[in-house]
């Protein structure tokens, strides 16, 4: 009976093996986790997943760059930005954007360092700035990113490239910048720049003077709304200005800018006119709108005498000091003036104004309608970054320009320069909501009533000069509105010929 003992050993061995196996199995099984902990881990994982999904578009898009860029090394780029002394974030944000892009690129496996020389200049002579850029371009050493030059000229001269292919590629990301801003960078059917901030006109008034005229706080607070609805017109406000002047509360009812600019174009637009026809790409003059515009300024300057006839040609310093010290009731300005008044010592006793003073004494609204029930509004337009045609990394440059306006950077620039932010998402960004009271309100009414009127014609400068010349004559009473319209249209047709469309 030698088989029987071996089968016994086998069975015993099996049983022992099983027991050992079970013991080992029990030993290595992880301990159970309490239910809450388990739930927490799961929800964390889900949140991370949604965040990853949020930047998945960036991630996916950037993945496409693999293969077009070196996988490591240093990429040097340069950028020239310009503006007034408070717009320096235009340059700073490019630097930060480059760092951000670096990090994102590392995420897709490209270990490159982007070194960007972001130069900022406080420019007063834009002609010299353009020469500087043109010379650099001719020497083959133009910066990758440039701003502060005329878009039409730059496109025609071949200095910058069109960015349509990048727009299409990153369309989802770029939707964070409003559509109308992208329209403002279109010329001859292509897009030529990246919007950086938004300049908007704002109609300011002195609340303290209105109080002295006997207006109640509710009336004052309700004024912007009434203007927006077209219940209070420009001529109504002219009456208010007259009253204030007669009572000796102010020296002048209205001040406007001393040379041609967007704020002077608004009455013409509100009257239904246009200066540029996108379809044909030609300049336009609408005679009836011109008449309404000239009539307005004529009335203000010569009839009601609430606007000085030497307005054109006054120095900026005079203008700001006039309004800031309460000697002028209405100022046809822009959003950045709110910031400027807090930084430059215009006030004769307070110097640079604290924001509290502004909230207390200065109100803001849309530019009023010309007739009751008419349209009120403001014009808005973007500051643009351009990509130079000599750039070796145009796509990277484009991305840097775009990332330069993510909410934290956009907010820094907006708060410093008092221009409007360019992204939708900035309007929900807590620091901006918290500190950007003024800009927030302006953004709100711009969103509803803002007009984007880009004029992208090489001869616009010529037409502007003529408009200014005629405005001066109208304000001085040398021409009546009708005469001015005739004279302007004739001169414009003589000078511009084919490039001009005249409408009744």
């Amino acid at each position, binding site marked *: 009976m030698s088989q029987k003992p071996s089968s016994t050993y086998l069975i015993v061995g099996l049983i022992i093996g099983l027991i050992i196996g079970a013991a080992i199995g029990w030993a290595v099984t992880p301990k159970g986790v309490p239910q809450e902990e388990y739930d927490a881990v799961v929800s964390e994982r889900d949140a991370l997943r949604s965040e990853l999904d949020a930047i998945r578009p960036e991630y996916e898009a950037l993945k496409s760059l693999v293969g077009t860029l070196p996988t490591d090394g240093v990429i040097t780029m340069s950028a020239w930005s310009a503006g007034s002394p408070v717009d320096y974030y235009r340059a700073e944000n490019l630097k930060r954007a480059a760092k951000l892009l670096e990090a994102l690129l590392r995420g897709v496996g490209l270990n490159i360092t982007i070194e960007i020389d972001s130069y900022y200049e*406080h420019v007063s002579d834009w002609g010299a700035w353009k020469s500087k850029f043109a*010379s650099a371009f*001719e020497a083959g050493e133009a910066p990758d990113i440039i701003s502060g030059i005329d878009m039409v000229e730059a496109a025609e001269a071949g200095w910058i490239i069109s960015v349509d292919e990048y727009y299409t590629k990153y369309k989802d990301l770029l939707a964070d910048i409003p559509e109308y801003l992208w329209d403002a960078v279109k010329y001859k059917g292509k897009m030529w720049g990246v919007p950086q901030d938004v300049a908007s006109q704002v109609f300011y008034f002195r609340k303290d003077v209105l109080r002295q005229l006997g207006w109640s706080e509710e009336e004052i607070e309700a004024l912007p709304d009434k203007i927006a609805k077209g219940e209070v017109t420009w001529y109504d406000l002219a009456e208010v200005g007259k009253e204030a002047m007669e009572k000796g509360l102010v020296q002048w009812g209205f001040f406007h800018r001393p040379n041609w600019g967007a704020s002077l174009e608004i009455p013409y637009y509100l009257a239904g006119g246009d200066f540029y026809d996108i379809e044909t790409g030609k300049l336009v003059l609408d005679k009836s709108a011109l008449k309404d515009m000239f009539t307005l300024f004529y009335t203000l300057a010569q009839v009601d005498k609430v606007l000085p006839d030497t307005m054109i040609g006054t120095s900026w*310093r005079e203008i700001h000091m006039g309004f800031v010290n309460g000697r002028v009731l209405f100022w046809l300005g822009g959003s950045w003036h709110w910031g400027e008044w807090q*930084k430059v010592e215009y006030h004769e006793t307070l110097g640079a104004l604290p924001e509290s003073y502004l909230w207390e004494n200065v109100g803001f609204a849309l530019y009023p309608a010309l007739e009751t029930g008419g349209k009120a509004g403001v014009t808005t337009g973007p500051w643009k970054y351009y990509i130079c045609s000599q750039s070796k990394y145009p796509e990277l440059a484009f991305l840097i320009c775009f990332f330069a306006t993510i909410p934290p950077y956009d907010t820094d620039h907006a708060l410093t320069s008092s221009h409007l932010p360019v992204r939708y998402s900035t309007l929900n960004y807590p620091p901006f909501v918290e500190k950007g009271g003024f800009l927030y309100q302006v953004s709100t009414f711009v969103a509803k009533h803002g007009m984007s009127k880009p004029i992208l014609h090489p001869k616009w400068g010529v037409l502007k000069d003529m408009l200014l010349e005629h405005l001066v004559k109208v304000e001085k009473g040398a021409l009546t509105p009708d005469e001015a319209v005739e004279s302007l249209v004739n001169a414009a047709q003589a000078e511009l010929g084919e490039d001009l469309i005249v409408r009744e």
Partner: protein
Amino acid sequence: MTSKPKPRYRAAIRKAKLMNFLKYVIVYSVLLIPLVPILSMMTWLVVQSFSEGPTSGLIPRGFTLENFRFLWHPIRFGLSEYPNIWPIVGNSLILAVGTVVFEIPVAALAGYALSRMKFPGRVVTMKLIVALHAFPGVILLIALFYILNRLGLYGKGVLTLIGVALVKAGLGVPMDTWILKGFFDGIPWELEWAAMVDGCSRFQTWRKILLPIITPGISAVAIFSFMSGWGEFLLAYTYIKRREFYPISVFLYSVIGEFVFVDWGLLAAVALFYMMPILVFYALTQKTLLKLQLVGAVKG
């Protein structure tokens, strides 16, 4: 003669003295009253640079040396920082001294040749110098941009500065040659002949004997060239890429801004500092400047 002059004489003398007095009143008025704006501007410049805030008229607001901080501190504008001022001064010096170094030898050589030597085209050259004066700087500027581009002088740091100095020198040479020719014309022949008879070559005569004599003329040319180079802005601004190579004129331009946000005190201090070398040069060469003879005047 008896002691006292008669009353009539006294009256006549009084009248003469009065006329004399009036004459001097008129002379000094005409000379000094128009100077009032200039002198007040200079006074303001000094006062403002030491004032804490914008002056009201010529009265400073507080006294401070802070405006001169750019001498020992980098200047910040917004988030960007300007480098130390002294390399910038160095750049201006390269420009200005470069201009002088290029202009003087060329003008001295040509001035002498036009004054003393006979060669075909001599009179034509002199007419040319006069004719060149009719050419506006504008016309040259456009083409100079073209030439500087072609010569590849964009953004090359010190080389660009030297290139610009050469341009400035070239622009000033005709006038300087004319001036120095005038000085050479004023030296009597005897000196030269004496030297040459003693065995000097013409060049040696020029170098060792004549140049020292026309030192006043050379110093006049020197100050004009220096001022030309020191004051150059547009070419430097356009062709110099990196901020470290900017001369002071461009630095000043950045400080000026649009006269809106400007820091008046800093601006005045930088402007004063910028003018210093010229004022020094000016003080050293005043006698010469006041006696420049561009035209063979009286003996004519």
